[in-house]
């Protein structure tokens, strides 16, 4: 069976075998757990607790500031130690609520989110309220607040609900393990979505390098209207626009949102979170993190409490500090290289990778030989080398004319460049400069 796919893209070495068969383990944090007030795309949260407050597991810590923002909850029980600026994965200091862990993981007898009474009809407004209250964001790594996605304009019909199980980044196996071990939550979550978006078709797309997860989901989806489709393994299959193209043959027009072509895309883990929020009243307080790379002696898939220090996670996986040269939060194609490991795991931390010198390339760039490989792989149909030249020369008008803002920063161009030129890196910077100028 040939998987569905999109045009162009690359076939990196996946290294998923390192952790794909390792069962999820629950890892408990140490004495101190740190909750940054910005764990999502959009406005930072405002803390609703003060120093000395006692927190139960699931208690709200930060309240969403505006529509594009997401609540933050405590993953442990303990006392608020301090509220101060601390370093985060984003590489900047953010307001963080630091909680002293009492190790009891006590649950508030008065739950803040009451589980949904299933006798009542689930409307979209109720669903959105639950998702908002639980602070659900895109758990694939993009961390876009899920309730914003659900709030589609009234005049646009949702024809497809696509569930992203592509997990196209190398090394990552967190979604794969969720499908294998917690697939029921995912299916139940999709059913909830279908209750609200009655006319939509729900399709779960899974790359064909996760055949076990595919089979598992097919079994679970039996006797439900949910379709499970196999995708050809290719990066960046998990990109929202490319998943839509592969599964529906529709292309989201340049600069538009998926709803323009009647689609709504959610990550596997996010859908599971929707189920737990609505039916069990659980907010997002933990996530599955793949800890992999040749720099760890015990690669694993961990259920980590949000706010756990990355150093603790790495030590749990027995990091080899001598071998590790680069630590990445997220996948190797789009993840962030860390310069500090005393920072907390957040909702978007899909993986922590310890890469050795052999695994991560560090050759200096040389002249472009005009081989055209970047053009051949760019899934957005751009000419990365032209964009890079405009970017490094500061020719932003030309950059805009070359449709530089369409770039999804997937990194295929820089991956494939034989001259090791920093293509996407320059394009990313130019995009940021242009955005800053526009606002």
């Amino acid at each position, binding site marked *: 069976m040939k998987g569905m796919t999109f045009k162009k893209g*690359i076939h*990196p*070495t996946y290294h998923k075998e390192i952790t794909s068969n390792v069962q999820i383990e629950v890892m408990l944090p140490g004495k101190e757990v740190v909750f940054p007030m910005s764990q999502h795309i959009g406005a930072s949260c405002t803390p609703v607790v003060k120093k000395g407050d006692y927190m139960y597991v699931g208690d709200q810590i930060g309240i969403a500031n505006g529509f594009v923002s997401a609540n933050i909850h405590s993953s442990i029980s303990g006392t608020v130690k301090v509220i101060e600026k601390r370093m985060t994965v984003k590489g900047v200091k953010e307001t963080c609520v630091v909680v002293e862990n009492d190790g009891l993981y006590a649950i508030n007898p008065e739950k803040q989110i009451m589980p949904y009474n299933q006798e009542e009809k689930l409307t979209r407004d109720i669903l959105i309220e639950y998702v908002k209250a639980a602070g659900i964001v895109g758990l694939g790594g993009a961390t876009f607040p899920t309730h914003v996605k659900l709030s589609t304009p009234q005049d646009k019909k949702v024809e497809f609900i696509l569930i992203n199980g592509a997990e196209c980044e*190398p090394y990552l196996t967190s979604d794969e393990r969720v499908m294998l071990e917690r697939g029921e939550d995912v299916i139940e979550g999709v059913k909830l979505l279908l209750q609200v978006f009655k006319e939509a078709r729900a399709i779960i797309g899974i790359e064909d390098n996760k055949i076990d997860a595919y089979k598992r989901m097919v079994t679970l989806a039996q006797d439900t209207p949910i379709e499970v489709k196999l995708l050809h393994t290719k990066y960046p299959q998990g990109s929202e*626009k490319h998943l839509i*193209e592969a599964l529906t043959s529709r*292309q*989201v*027009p*340049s600069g*538009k949102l998926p709803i323009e072509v009647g689609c709504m895309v959610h990550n596997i883990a996010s859908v599971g979170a929707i189920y737990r929020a609505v039916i069990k009243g659980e907010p997002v307080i933990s996530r599955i993190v793949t800890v992999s790379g040749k720099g760890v002696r015990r690669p694993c898939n961990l259920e980590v409490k949000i706010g756990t220090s990355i150093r603790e996670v790495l030590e749990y996986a027995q990091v080899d*500090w001598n071998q*590790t*040269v*680069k630590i*990445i939060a997220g996948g*190797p*194609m*789009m*993840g*962030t*290289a*860390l*310069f500090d490991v005393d920072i907390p795991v957040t909702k978007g931390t899909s993986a922590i*990778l310890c*890469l050795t010198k052999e695994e*991560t*390339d*560090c*050759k200096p760039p*040389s*002249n472009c*030989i*005009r*081989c*055209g490989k970047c*053009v*051949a792989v*760019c*899934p*957005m*149909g*751009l*000419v990365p*080398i032209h964009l890079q030249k405009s970017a490094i020369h500061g020719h932003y008008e030309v950059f805009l004319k070359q*449709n530089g803002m*369409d770039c999804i*920063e997937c*990194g295929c161009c*820089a*991956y*494939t*460049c*034989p*001259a*090791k030129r*920093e293509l*996407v*890196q320059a394009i*990313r910077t130019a995009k940021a400069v242009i955005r800053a100028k526009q606002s």
Partner: protein
Amino acid sequence: MEKMLMVSSSPHVKAEHTTRKIMLDVVIALMPALIAGIYFFGVYVLFLTVVSVGCCVGFEWIWEKVFKRTITIGDLSAVVTGVLLAYNVPARAPVYIIVIGAFVSIILAKQVFGGIGQNFINPALAARAFLLAGYSTDMRSFPVPEQGRLLSSVDAVTGATPLELMKNGALDQLPSLTDAFLGNIGGCIGEVSALALLIGGIYLIIRKVITWHIPVCYIGSIFVLTTLLNGFDFYQSFYSLFLGGVMLGGFFMATDYTTTPMTIKGQIIFALGAGMITTLIRLFGGYPEGVSYSILIMNLVVPLIDKYVKVRRFGEVV
């Protein structure tokens, strides 16, 4: 105490191929033709090739040393140019021809424009055109192949190439199709054996260094156009594909990354244009062979092709 971590913008992993590995593949792909050349014309061919590679690499090194630029001879692009330059001269070419050719290709065609990736015409072909204009006697005396004799006689017999015979209408003197395919014909060192070049070309396609588009469009367009303009003589059109520089040009010259368009669509236009010019020169020009000039002319059109041939954008609103 922990050591410092490496930090950079993503992606953090990169493909294995490098400029050097690509060039090495090209050199490997060119080896069958060298073996064929030695087999048909003797070890002097090997000597010329080694001198040519040495001069090209040497000139590149000297230039970069003098102008205090990064030494790039490690990328092997000068080696490729050196081999291709040697393949473009007759088997008995004097050494000074090679030295001059190496200077023209590396210094005049490549380094003055900024080195690798910056040249607008194919360096080896630029040298060939230069030598043909300046040293036409040396460049146009083609020894008759002496199959298997490694140390050929000092006074090698020269003769007309099949293309010259065709041009002069001496069709009865043409070598057989098998000889033309294997390379037992007069011509430049690396051009004669179509078989050896095909093996190399297929290697490049398998290794994904090149795609099939340029060779197929280039060679195909020569065949179609020659047939059309030559009174539908299918046999002779097919036969002429194995003569002169068609195979070397199609697989190794017209596929040079730097001097060809970056998009597949552009590459097809480039190949069709070059095929057309080759045929027109061969059939109507004053010169028996048109491969090198056709590619050089199309090299000059590349910036225009790259400017006007647009890639289809994802989600483009038509």
